[in-house]
């Protein structure tokens, strides 16, 4: 006993000394996702807790984070985007040929792949999937996954392992779109079913390293490893079957309870870690593994069809009027990043615009003064007709940082005479409210897609037209030309040039958007859990994950 006591005392003293030496640093060691040591062991169950209940398990339409997390683990895609490099690599397609116009994509498929019901994966499987994704099906109630499939003409089966996909316009982003979680390949029996039945766990036939063994809504989803799986992308950490026997994904809605369950050893890893829990968990020895979500950052999208955001000066002032350092210090943790462009730094083609995205309130005030906005008695500016400089913002409260971030911006903008009105709503209310035209000056959301094509998808008047550019507007055609350039080439240099031009157009020339921060997925895991990983769009994938036996 005495010896144990003295050992404990020694440890405490050592800890105190270490604490003093490191200046009582609170940051601790952040465990990077790559530094897991030791040879992987097979077997075991990973107990994983998430915030939101996955409801729609249809891989082609389940879009919430936990839904796409599950479908990312059970489906394979034709192409694989390397999460580290952003490169597009072979997966179910061994190779591909593309015509110079980027309208015809011919894929050469693997011939050794089977679905979880034993049927073979062939060129017909690809055609069946792509026709539903690109065209939808009225009888089955399936709407096409429009954003990624605009201009889809059809798929021709050339032979059992070759297909040709045709578009009526250049689609440089297509290879990357095929790697998205929306593009998972489903078996014939699943694709026959009407929309509602496709989302039921027992109906899912897929080719992935895991299958859904059990799914109880709002309680848990159990993934089981698929025996005989042998077609992982080459750049994964291993090939063959997954290490884990099962993954038990449970739903714990309360952030405090999720962290508590991890600390109490009831679960091995949790997603959706509260900002305030990151530092303490790190100190206690848990791994905090963040990955920035690639695509378009959380950004203030300014509408040009509505007063007063139709005024370039106002948009410019919104860009210059608030403090990014304060955002990083008071709202975000090191897992997140203040935006330095409208594109996430993880997207190939990203250009650092941070020197333009700086607070300069004096400059902002000069611009507003010059444009005829004069401060009224209450400190808010008015134009010559007496109309207030008031901006209605519509945002989603699905991420913990959103509301505090917008409030910070609101306070800063008030100082230069802009009255920002916040409406930060839950997803369904946001969905409904966003259909109200001519009501919002600013809409804020992010878009996860690790390809510069995301900019065309969101801002081009031919697509979502987020800035509501009107046909008569002189910049209407300019926007189409500038943004569509990224879809017209796969040449790395040319595409990078087009990407830079697109970012400059959106951020500097027209100020159609003011990016705020790059959201991240944050996983906290017990030290026994190794290779906590994400696919390119930052959905957890458990294929390489392994766990030390308990």
């Amino acid at each position: 006993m005495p010896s144990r006591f003295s050992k404990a005392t020694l440890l405490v003293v050592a800890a105190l000394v270490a604490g003093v030496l490191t200046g009582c640093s609170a940051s601790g060691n952040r465990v990077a996702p790559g530094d897991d040591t030791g040879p992987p062991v097979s077997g075991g169950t990973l107990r994983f807790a998430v915030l939101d209940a996955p409801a729609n398990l249809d891989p082609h339409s389940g879009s919430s984070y936990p839904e796409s997390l599950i479908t990312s683990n059970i489906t394979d895609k034709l192409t694989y985007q390397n999460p580290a490099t952003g490169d597009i690599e072979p997966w179910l397609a061994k190779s591909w040929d593309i015509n110079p116009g980027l309208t015809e994509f011919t894929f050469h498929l693997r011939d050794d792949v089977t679905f979880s019901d034993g049927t073979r994966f062939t060129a017909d499987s690809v055609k069946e999937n792509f026709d539903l994704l690109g065209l939808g099906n009225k009888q089955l109630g399936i709407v096409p996954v429009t954003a990624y499939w605009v201009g889809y003409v059809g798929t021709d089966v050339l032979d059992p392992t070759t297909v040709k996909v045709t578009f009526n316009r250049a689609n440089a982003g297509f290879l990357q779109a095929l790697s998205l979680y929306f593009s998972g390949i489903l078996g014939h029996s699943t694709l026959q079913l009407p929309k509602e039945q496709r989302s039921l766990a027992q109906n899912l036939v897929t080719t992935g390293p895991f299958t859904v063994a059990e799914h109880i809504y709002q309680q848990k989803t159990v993934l089981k490893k698929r025996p005989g799986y042998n077609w992982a992308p080459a750049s994964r950490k291993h090939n063959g079957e997954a290490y884990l026997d099962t993954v038990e994904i449970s739903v714990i809605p309360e952030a405090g309870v999720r962290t508590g369950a991890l600390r109490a050893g009831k679960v091995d890893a949790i997603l959706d870690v509260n900002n305030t829990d990151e530092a303490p968990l790190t100190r206690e020895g848990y791994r905090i593994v963040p990955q920035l979500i690639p695509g378009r950052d959380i950004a203030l999208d300014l509408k040009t069809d509505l007063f007063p955001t139709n005024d370039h000066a106002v948009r410019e002032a919104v860009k210059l009027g608030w403090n990014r350092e304060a955002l990083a210090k008071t709202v975000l943790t090191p897992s997140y990043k203040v935006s330095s462009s409208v594109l996430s730094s993880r997207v190939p083609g990203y250009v650092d615009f941070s020197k333009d995205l700086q607070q300069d309130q004096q400059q902002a005030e000069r611009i507003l003064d010059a444009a005829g906005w004069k401060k009224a008695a209450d400190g808010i500016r008015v134009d010559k007709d007496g109309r207030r400089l008031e901006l209605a913002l519509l945002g989603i409260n699905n991420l913990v940082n959103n509301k505090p971030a917008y409030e910070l911006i609101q306070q800063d903008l008030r100082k230069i005479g802009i009255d920002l009105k916040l409406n930060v709503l839950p997803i369904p209310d946001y969905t409904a409210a966003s259909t109200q035209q001519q009501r919002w000056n600013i809409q804020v959301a992010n878009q996860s897609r690790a390809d510069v094509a995301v900019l065309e998808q969101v801002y081009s008047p031919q697509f979502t037209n987020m800035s509501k550019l009107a046909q008569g507007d002189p910049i209407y055609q300019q926007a189409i030309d500038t943004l569509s350039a990224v879809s017209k080439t796969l040449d790395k240099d040319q595409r990078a040039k087009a990407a830079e031009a697109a970012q400059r157009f959106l951020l500097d020339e027209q100020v159609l958007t003011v990016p705020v921060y790059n959201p991240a997925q944050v996983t906290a895991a017990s030290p026994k859990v190794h290779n906590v990983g994400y696919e390119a769009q930052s959905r957890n994938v458990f294929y390489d994950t392994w766990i030390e036996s308990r």
Partner: protein
Amino acid sequence: MARYVLAKLGQAIFVVWGAYTVTFVLLYVLPYDAVDLLFDPNQGDLVTEQDKQNARVYYGLDHNLVGQYLHRLFDAAHGDFGASTRTGEQVWPLILSVLPQTALLAGFALVLAVFIAFAVALTAGYTRTRWLADLVATLPAAGVSVPVFLVGLAVLQVFSFQLGWFPPTGNDGFAALVLPAVTLAIPVSAPIGQLLIKNFDAGLRAGYVTVSLAKGATRLWVLVRDVLKNAGLPALTIAGVTFGNLLAGAVIVETIFSRSGLGRLTETAVRTQDVPLVQAVVVFAAIVFVTVNFLVDLVYPLLDPRLRTRVRTRTSV
């Protein structure tokens, strides 16, 4: 008596129909187009009018409202509330599948609540120390004013994370039921306790108690034998209120303790605007509510002789 029962039954059916109709109006007529809610907000203008029209036809939203209403009402009367727009599962079986969890939680919490209420009321009534009686009498007020989620998080922290006596989450077994039930019982016990304390207070000052005490009965004897009997009956009146408290509390408790159940299902359905599911839950709650009240209405005349005569005279007129 038969007419009394039929009248009450008619009232009950009317309430359920009313609940269905009001939710239909709220969900399908106001305030947004139900079709818009089926799509990802970020897809915005990319979803073509044709796609929306296809979805409208697929979900039967293209008929005129009266037609939709009658059609859905007819289906609902046969127990078919359609499929959840989120999960694709049929909503009525979905509700029935989570019902046992909530029934167990609510039942256990109710037993605990009644126990707590009586314990508090008896202590308050029995003790002669004035300040202690007053203190105990304020407990029910405290019970309702402390937020349920705070109680839940506190008991979790102590009994699950620190002491490790009970599992923090899930539905499996009795151990997982204890903390949620205690959490839920506290606010539910409050109105019952309050009523009992008032009635005990009035009862102890009644003439027949003075007589008993004069005859040499102890305070406890009087309390249990005489006062309790008379004070317990009105507690039945608040059964309906208690039921509401149980359901409302279950929403929070099931979320904190990650239990599947009707409360959490309701919360998610509302949050994700899963229209068929919300409607089925409202109708279900209405059915339960009117059933409880119907039973109370039937039981009351049996317990209270004064009501019995009133029912008889009214039905004989």
